[in-house]
């Protein structure tokens, strides 16, 4: 090991080992929310396989008048498989985050907010930082955008026939 890499390792903190943290908001129409069924099973599978670590979960309900009612996961009656996840939540989200997240919701809907760490990406992210790299952009490409791009391409190609 070179002296440079030793120095870099000594400077590392637990934050250097943290994988990218993402969030999503899944909205359900009024009376149609289901957080403990198939969705819960898939989430637990991702945790059990070490792919992600769930950091926080909130359930938000937006009334027709725009009032937002937050609910802790522990306030859900029967958690089923989510019980183990609930016990390890870090409560990262603050009160002010509730309003920011609910801005995307339709009035009369219920949504689950999930914050998670991408454990699968942590070693690569750490390596990039140790190499002196800095993340300057990231994002997600919607499948719809890929389909639209392909279809536009096909339309252009057929015009040339």
């Amino acid at each position, binding site marked *: 090991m070179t002296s440079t890499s030793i120095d870099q390792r000594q400077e590392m903190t637990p934050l250097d080992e943290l994988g990218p943290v993402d*969030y999503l*908001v899944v909205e359900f129409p009024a009376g149609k929310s289901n957080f403990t069924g198939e969705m819960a099973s898939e989430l637990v599978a991702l945790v059990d396989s070490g792919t992600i670590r769930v950091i926080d979960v*909130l359930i938000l309900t937006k009334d027709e008048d725009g009032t937002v*009612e*937050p*609910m*802790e996961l522990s*306030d859900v009656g029967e958690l089923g498989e989510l019980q183990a996840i609930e016990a390890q939540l870090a*409560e*990262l*989200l*603050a*009160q*002010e*985050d*509730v*309003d*920011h*997240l609910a*801005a*995307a*919701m339709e009035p009369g809907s219920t949504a689950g907010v999930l914050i998670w760490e991408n454990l699968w990406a942590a070693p690569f992210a750490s390596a990039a930082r140790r190499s002196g790299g800095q993340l300057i952009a990231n994002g997600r490409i*919607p*499948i*719809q*955008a*890929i*389909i*639209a791009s*392909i*279809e*536009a*391409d096909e339309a252009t190609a057929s015009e040339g026939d």
Partner: protein
Amino acid sequence: MPLRAARVGRVGVIGHPVAKTAVVAKAVTPGAAPVARTAVVAAAVTPGRGRRRRI
């Protein structure tokens, strides 16, 4: 139900009001079966099988 006390008064992490994820209208092609469209996307993102980039 109220949030836990630990969440109140803290600085948030989201930082700004969140906008609803936009659905690309062009992608909603009438008549295209979801399975067929999934196959098209899979082919496009498979190394060696995708389109040639035009820049």
